[in-house]
């Protein structure tokens, strides 16, 4: 194998530990007077976009930021629950930059780029410092210092959190930094705006076309660089834990204008979500991975056991994760925990009305915490009831909002009965291919946060997405963008009268008109649901060649039907959520095909990509390092046509092994 000449990752030379430091001090700088003349467009105001927009404006660049919600504070990052990792080693439990780096590469099943991941681990500590300085109220111990917890796939406590609302607090921190710049006039904020295309002039990205979602007007925005920070594409599966509006459109338009798409089939199915309750369901709700710190996962040892959980005695319960993976127990990585749950349910041990669920049980944690409290308060004769009350109070403090959420949705009280959980689509490791500078294959076009493919390989560890989004925005792009912009100071203002703007705007307008003119019988929602079903059944937790080939045919047929039978009510010059949805579903359909193609190409199992043909005897993922230790970067050539380019992954600092959590 050899890396495609089109995929120069621009990894700096030198030993791993020195790469970033050295590079950072040698990136060309742009002087303050020139920065004021350079415009940067940031698409998205989640953790990645808000932190990038704020920081770039602080540095003196002119920034325009876009989001489709009514306020930048509502980006999907707001919903992240469990926490953010950082190699601070505050717990003195042996953590280090190297260990965070190692855990992330191993957790990703050896499909991520060493240099990027090391840099991520290096800057992780500064993220916590920055957030605390902004007033992010992380959880603290009685001594006033920061508290930590564990997440899956690791054996240290390095996760910082704010109850079950970590994403909210981090995003509000980044949002306040962004709004501060808006107040100072250095960032111009465009909310309720949807980017619908990027404009490329002479091979360089020079701006975007955005639609004002209230008036329907198409707007041209020019910039010397464009940053796609538009989040992940999990909603291609229709049901996922993502927010309803999360979509691939921004990334997909970038892809169709020349940005290669990396590892599109790498999706994360999260093990602990509230199971589907009926056909009306519009989205799935995550129960944070942090719950696996204290909760125990089990199913009955007997198939089709219909007893209520409390009537099943201890020795008739199968704590299958503790049984199969004694070293990590309930804290195995997500891909492994998800497959194990599917395996039990498929084999007939599932619980609940649908039988597609397993228990997440807090009984023993409540008792353990209750005893701890009793000891702390010298209550040596506490009754079991008192212990339970005290234990519940501790659990409430740690996980209260998650327990409330569960109760609200299911109508059951998780303090009294075990929660029922099942895996659900959660995150996409795949995304736009970027080099070490976070630049895509189109010069001047960057991708940050979940929208890029970069750091998580074939499986992301818990609490690492928040870390990556903020690393990209606060600490990476502000430096690396200089490498490109230093050469742009002579470009001057970019005119939106250029014919490329005319043409791109025309393309966007024609497509909107097309969507509205079909006037068929079927709603965008309906097509989305059908696409989701194909993807979940054939490109979900387990995949095989036959299923993927079928899926590709089915998706092509669905696309045809979409473009001949779609019905969008309303017009293009008003607030029209149906029209927004239609455009997004059209892009999801095209992406779905590429995901299946990528999954079909990758004849191995790794991380979240499980090809049934490639597994060990005990059902673990079987990698093929010889043939597939590469990033699959797809170039768009035309409808249903892609060319595959490979970036070889080289591991110089980590010994590759079969991932074992036993």
């Amino acid at each position, binding site marked *: 194998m050899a890396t495609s000449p089109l995929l120069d990752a621009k990894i700096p030379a030198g030993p791993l530990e020195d790469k970033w430091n050295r590079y950072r001090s040698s990136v060309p700088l742009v002087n303050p007077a020139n920065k004021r003349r350079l415009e940067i467009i940031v698409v998205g105001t989640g953790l990645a976009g808000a932190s990038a927009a704020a920081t770039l404006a602080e540095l003196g660049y002119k920034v325009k930021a876009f989001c489709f919600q009514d*306020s930048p504070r*509502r980006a999907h990052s707001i919903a992240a629950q469990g926490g953010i990792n950082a190699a601070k080693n505050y717990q003195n439990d042996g953590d280090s930059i190297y260990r965070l780096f190692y855990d992330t590469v191993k957790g990703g099943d050896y499909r991520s780029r060493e240099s990027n991941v090391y840099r991520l681990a290096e800057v992780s500590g500064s993220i916590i410092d920055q957030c605390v300085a902004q007033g992010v109220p992380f959880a603290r111990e009685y001594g006033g210092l920061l508290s930590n917890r564990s997440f899956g796939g690791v054996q240290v406590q390095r996760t910082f959190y704010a109850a079950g609302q970590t994403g909210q607090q981090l995003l509000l921190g980044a949002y306040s930094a962004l709004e501060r710049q808006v107040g100072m006039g250095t960032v111009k904020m465009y909310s309720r705006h949807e980017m619908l295309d990027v404009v490329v002039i002479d091979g360089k990205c020079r701006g975007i076309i955005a639609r004002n979602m209230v008036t329907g007007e198409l707007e041209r925005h020019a910039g010397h660089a464009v940053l796609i920070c538009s989040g992940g594409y999990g909603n291609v599966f229709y049901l996922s834990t993502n927010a309803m509006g999360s979509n691939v459109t921004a990334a997909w338009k970038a892809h169709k204008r020349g940005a290669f798409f990396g590892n599109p089939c790498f999706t994360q199915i999260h093990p602990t979500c509230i199971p589907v309750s009926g056909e*009306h369901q519009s989205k799935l709700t995550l129960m944070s991975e942090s719950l696996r710190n204290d909760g125990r996962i089990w199913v009955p040892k007997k198939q089709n056991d219909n007893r209520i959980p409390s009537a099943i005695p201890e020795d008739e319960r199968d704590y299958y994760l503790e049984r199969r993976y004694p070293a990590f127990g309930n804290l195995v990585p997500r891909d492994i925990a998800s497959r194990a749950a599917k395996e039990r349910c498929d084999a007939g041990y599932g619980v609940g009305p649908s039988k597609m669920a397993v228990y997440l049980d807090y009984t023993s944690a409540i008792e353990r915490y209750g005893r701890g409290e009793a000891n702390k308060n010298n209550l040596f004769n506490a009754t079991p009831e008192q212990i339970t009350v005290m234990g519940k109070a501790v659990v409430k403090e740690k996980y209260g909002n998650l327990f409330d959420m569960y109760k609200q949705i299911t109508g059951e009280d998780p303090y009294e009965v075990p929660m029922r959980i099942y895996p659900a689509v959660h995150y996409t490791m795949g995304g736009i291919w970027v080099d070490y500078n976070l630049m895509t294959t189109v010069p001047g076009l960057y991708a940050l946060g979940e929208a890029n493919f970069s750091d998580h390989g074939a499986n992301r560890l818990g609490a690492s997405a928040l870390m990556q989004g903020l690393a990209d925005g606060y600490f990476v792009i502000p430096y690396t963008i200089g490498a490109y912009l230093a050469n742009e100071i002579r470009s001057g203002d970019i005119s939106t009268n250029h014919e490329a703007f005319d043409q791109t705007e025309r393309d966007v307008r024609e497509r909107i008109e097309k969507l509205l003119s079909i006037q068929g019988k079927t709603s965008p929602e309906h097509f989305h649901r059908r696409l989701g079903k194909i993807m979940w059944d054939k490109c979900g937790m387990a995949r095989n060649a036959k299923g993927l080939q079928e899926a590709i045919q089915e998706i092509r047929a669905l696309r045809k039907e979409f473009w001949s039978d779609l019905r969008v009510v309303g017009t293009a010059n008003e607030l029209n*959520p149906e029209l927004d949805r239609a455009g997004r579903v059209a892009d999801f359909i095209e992406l779905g095909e590429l995901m299946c193609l990528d999954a079909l190409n990758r004849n191995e199992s790794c991380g979240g990509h499980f090809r049934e043909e490639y597994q060990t005897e005990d059902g673990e993922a079987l990698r093929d390092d010889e043939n597939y230790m590469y990033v699959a970067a797809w170039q768009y050539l035309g409808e249903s046509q892609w060319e595959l380019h490979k970036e070889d992954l080289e591991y110089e600092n980590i010994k590759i092994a079969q991932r074992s959590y036993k």
Partner: protein
Amino acid sequence: MDANANMHLTLNVWRQRNNSTEGGFVTYEVSDVSPDMSFLEMLDVLNERLVHEGKEPIAFDHDCREGICGSCSMYINGRPHGPLKGVATCQLHMRSFKSGDTIAIEPWRAVAFPVIKDLVTDRTAFDRIIASGGFVSVNTGNARDANSIPVRKENADDAFMAASCIGCGACVAACKNSSAMLFVSAKISQLALLPQGQTERKIRAEKMVAQMDSEGFGACSNTGACSAECPKEISLDTIARTNREYLGAKMTSSAV
């Protein structure tokens, strides 16, 4: 369809084309509603039907559907976010209603939140209030080690409670004066409780209150309806704290 999808409801929904046309209530009958559906899923079902009939679906803001993004915003039978305490519209489930119920659904009513369409309002005034001072002025890269600033756990917990505001605007919608005092106080309190927020404490309170006034929100008369309807149950104590902060600021500074 779900086996237990057996509820029937009458909805009176506010429909309004845009900000420059008048709106009015339109009545819809919906059946086959399951008690397990969320309120917004019930509206989804109605919207699917409207689309099928070639009619425009009801526009409403929503995104996370987990009670955290603050997008969803509507009066349900006259109460912001509906009947339950501490619950945003998206987390309200139909089991809180009975078959046969009539439900009125309206957008936020406040001068500072003009209606855009149907149930969708413009809440950017909140962003402008934050932009006026709802932050700690610390550029990226200027921070010292996080554990070099210990914070009393009680203060950290109280700051967190205040910071959990989702910016939905229900407090404004609940208030007979359309005051934004609870929203503003939540942010002022969060930062006043933390050492990081001290330097700009006075100026922050002054600027945010001034911006709130200039956006057309009404005055606070301490009625408490805001906190009672707040999906995050932000406490009235935050308002008391803000009044102290603001008075303190007013007495020692001349600039506004």
